């Protein structure tokens, strides 16, 4: 296997990787700005310079010449080279700043250059705290600057499009954004204009940067030049915490991080997953974060003489069990949900089976033509595929209507969806159903008919798994705390009892904005026990292990296997 020596340490490599990527993959950190693994290599920031040399070979024999110690004699290149653009070769020797003063000085020199026209307005810049320029300046930069002149002035607060704002002065011209629109989203909506030190990215005349993936340029911008119009000045990065998760706006299952402060989700950023979304996230996935904060319920409610009244959880469970138990099992309609996790739908299936009802069905939410063949799908729910694999199929509205008219629906259990708003029932029709039990995320139209309303935890508050349109099963972690104690959720958040004495910015410490709800996998066993069934409380991890063991379509889909990037399930058609 070919070998390369970096700072006198030998590494074996395969193929022909670029030197910078190889270094980053092997724990040899090198400062860089313009290089991004998913984009072409322009080598324009000149920050990743290293010394590169090749062994001297004997002209006649082709043998590598060696010194008295048997070490190969290296002929070093006349100039430093950008490691991002170097193709590795057998025998190559590299000196980084760890073993070369020249490289160390070059890094300092380059950062000094980068900063002379950079406004250094970190205290008011959204990028501060997670800024590659800031971080690498602290680590590799010079002590100060010798620049004593007026900085170049460029346009600031430029609205490039509906979601992205430009501060031209902060830009260091790495061209990541223009390369993204040229090479990844292919909208070609950004280009560099002006020349030399006046350069900055801009849309062509008359063009609006409304690329459906426009906000990715904010993530890859190594400085605060491109900021989110929605998020700018909303929160400091060090006051927030983030949790790995997936987006629930569509069925692609794109990996993301939910950023939370004071138990409010403030933004959604992509999380790299080569199997699904690489480094990217569509704008529509990011725009929906207010749904986790607004119109959230405040505890369970039971219908009394004066409408829905607040109740405690035990009372609500008991009432739900009582109403379900009173109905004939075959006349109960269970509606699963493609918004709910695999675990929640699975427990609902179990409950339906135990009561002798037909298996749950789900209400599909498809917008034909909305998909783009990449990260946006026609299906606007995250888990329709997971439902199908559980045997929960799209509901047949005609059949439901026929049963309703025949008076065969004595009770409805609607899980985490809105049957009225989605048109399965008219507002008046649902009033005819004697018993309506509803677990829900946000205030909705079905609530008006509910007899027991149980607020359910959303993707940002629960643990569970979802299956993407193409069969990729992934689990999520809770990003923010809900009211009340759930040991499983706490463990998944990495919160111990000691953490209760955290700082005011820790999400678990702050009781503000904690939604009064529970995950469905906690509610359903309680209702089942009320019906006399012997159900133990089980964590989603245990439930999923059970599913993976018993349902062929989920073979191998344990939390251990899913890890943080998910597991590809077998095609249903190919199952024995």
């Amino acid at each position, binding site marked *: 296997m070919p070998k390369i020596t970096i700072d006198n340490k030998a590494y074996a490599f395969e193929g022909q990787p670029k030197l910078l990527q190889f270094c980053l993959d092997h724990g040899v950190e090198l400062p860089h700005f313009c290089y991004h693994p998913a984009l072409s*290599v*322009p*080598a*324009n*920031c*000149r*920050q990743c*310079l290293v010394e590169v040399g090749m062994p001297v070979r004997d002209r006649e024999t082709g043998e590598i010449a060696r010194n008295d110690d048997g070490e190969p004699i290296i002929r070093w290149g*006349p*100039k*430093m080279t*950008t490691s991002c*653009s170097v193709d590795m070769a057998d025998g190559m020797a590299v000196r980084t700043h760890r073993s070369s003063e020249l490289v160390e000085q*070059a890094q300092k*020199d*380059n950062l*000094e*250059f*980068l900063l*002379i*026209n950079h406004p250094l307005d970190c205290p008011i810049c959204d990028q501060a705290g997670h800024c590659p320029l800031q971080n690498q300046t602290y680590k590799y930069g010079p002590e100060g600057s*010798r*620049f004593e*002149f007026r900085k*170049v002035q460029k346009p600031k607060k430029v609205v490039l499009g509906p979601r992205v704002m430009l501060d031209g002065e902060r830009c*260091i*011209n790495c*061209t990541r954004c223009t390369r993204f629109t040229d090479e990844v989203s292919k909208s070609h909506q950004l*280009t*560099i204009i*002006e*020349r*030399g*030190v*006046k*350069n900055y990215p801009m849309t062509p005349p008359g063009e609006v940067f409304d690329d459906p993936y426009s906000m990715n340029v904010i993530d890859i911008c190594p400085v605060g030049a491109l900021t989110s119009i929605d998020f700018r000045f909303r929160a400091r990065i060090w006051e927030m915490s983030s949790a790995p998760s997936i987006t629930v706006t569509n069925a692609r299952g794109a990996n993301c991080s939910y950023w939370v402060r004071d138990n409010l989700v403030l933004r959604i950023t992509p999380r790299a997953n080569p199997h699904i979304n690489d480094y990217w996230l569509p704008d529509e996935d990011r725009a929906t974060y207010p749904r986790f904060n607004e119109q959230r319920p405040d505890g369970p409610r039971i219908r009394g003489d004066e409408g829905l009244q607040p109740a405690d959880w035990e009372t609500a469970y008991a009432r739900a069990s009582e109403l379900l138990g009173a109905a004939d099992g075959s006349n109960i309609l269970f509606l699963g949900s493609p918004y709910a996790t695999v675990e929640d739908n699975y427990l609902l299936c179990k409950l339906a089976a135990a009561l002798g009802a037909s298996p749950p069905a789900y209400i599909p939410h498809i917008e034909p033509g909305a998909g783009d063949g990449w990260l946006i799908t026609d299906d606007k729910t995250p888990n329709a595929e997971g439902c199908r694999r559980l045997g929960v199929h799209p509901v047949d509205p005609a059949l439901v209507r026929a049963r309703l008219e025949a008076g065969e629906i004595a009770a409805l259990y609607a899980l985490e969806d809105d049957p009225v708003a989605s048109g399965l029932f008219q507002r008046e029709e649902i009033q005819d159903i004697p018993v309506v039990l509803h677990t829900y995320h946000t205030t909705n139209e079905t609530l008006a008919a509910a007899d027991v309303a149980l607020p359910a935890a959303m993707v940002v508050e629960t643990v569970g798994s979802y299956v993407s349109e193409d069969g990729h099963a992934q689990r999520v972690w809770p990003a923010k705390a809900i009211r009340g104690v759930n040991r499983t959720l706490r463990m998944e958040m990495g919160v111990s009892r000691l953490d209760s004495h955290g700082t005011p910015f820790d999400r678990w410490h702050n009781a503000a904005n904690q939604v009064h709800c529970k995950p469905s996998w906690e509610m359903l066993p309680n209702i089942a026990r009320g019906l006399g069934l012997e159900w133990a409380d089980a964590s989603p991890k245990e439930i999923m292990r059970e599913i993976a063991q018993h349902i062929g379509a989920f073979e191998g889909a344990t939390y251990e296997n899913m890890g943080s990037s998910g597991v590809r399930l077998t095609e249903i058609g190919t199952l024995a």
Partner: protein
Amino acid sequence: MEMALFGDNGSGKTDAWRSYERVLLPPVRDLHRFDTYVGHGGYEALRAVLTREEWTPGKVIEATKASGLRGRGGAGFPTGLKWSFMPPVEPGKPRYIACNGDESEPGTFKDRQLMEYNPHLVFEGILIAAWAMQIDATYLYVRGEYADWIRHMESELAMLYDKGYAGKRILGTDFSSDIVIHKGAGAYICGEETSLLESVEGKRAYPRIKPPFPAQKGLWGCPTTVNNVETLACAPLIINRGAEWFAGVGAEKHPGPVLYGISGHVERPGVYEYPTGMLITDLIEKVAGGVRGGKKLKAIVPGGASVPVLRADMIEGVTMDAESLREAGSMMGTAGMLVMDEDTDMVKFLRRVTRFYHHESCGQCTPCREGTGWIENLVTRIDEGQGTLRDLDILLELCDQMEGRTVCALADAAAWPVRNTIQRFREEFEAKCRQSIYAVA
């Protein structure tokens, strides 16, 4: 034959240059017209390479190598060798020449003369090179400011197509090759060979990283050779008069006729065609009529603003060819010579040069984008009497920080004049500085 005069000692140190007969810009009236050009033996070299069996493409390249022709665009790379870098012809993969007529360095204005007075020599050279490398199309990239000559060349080119000298089946042979005149939009960086390619492709003219070199991946990823206008104009001469003749003109290692663009404080500035290897003193005193107003010479820049400046006491016996100029501490560049008399303020000179590079840096690479502006700031401050000695040290350090650390050579071109002007005229700079508040080591 008079030309033999130059073959003997390979240098222009004698007075033999006085009997030199111009070949790039012969004194023929209306030579820029197709009929006149053909009437004076034009396109015979093209006809020869296309119709005579001995002129296989390989033989043309051999002849170019043997002639010793070196690129006239500034770097002085051997042209025949460059042509031989083109990979073998691959069916379905077009091959290109990009002919560089984007001259825009201060002090350089010789391609313009060719395009104005002898454009057909350029076309003929292009077509001979096209035959040598089996080229499908040539993009003649001309600086946009040369609008009049672009118009003229376009109409002459149309005539070439009409008469069958370009395009399909040239001169009735099986060889086809197109020429396209591409107008630049006025950026110095477009003269850098790879950013010229980007510009032809319709992109922003950012230089490309090398490797891959244009011969491997040039225009639209296809094999491409980039040559200067004057370089290609030499090709018909080599075919017509032979490689030996060419190699015998002027300096031994840097032979051939060359266009000297002499500007600045001389009596008769202009473009002069003479062999390489002329004594700089001859060029100033005898060709350009001496320093203006009988003043004393102070400094010259031999080949365009980017090459190091030479003090008057450094040019004794120095000839205009790569070897002699390297020994003297400068470079041949484009042979666009800037002459400065004793009254010249070298700080002002440097201020103007640094302003040019600040204005023309494309802004792709950090050191050049930021460094050129900083340097101009510092030199301006010194020129205005506000600088300190420390500023001079910073200037030299900035040169270190820029040189060899960028994609293309513009940063080097911007740093060399700074380094050399300060080193060679340090007293003038120090005299303009304020008393330093810093200790000077």
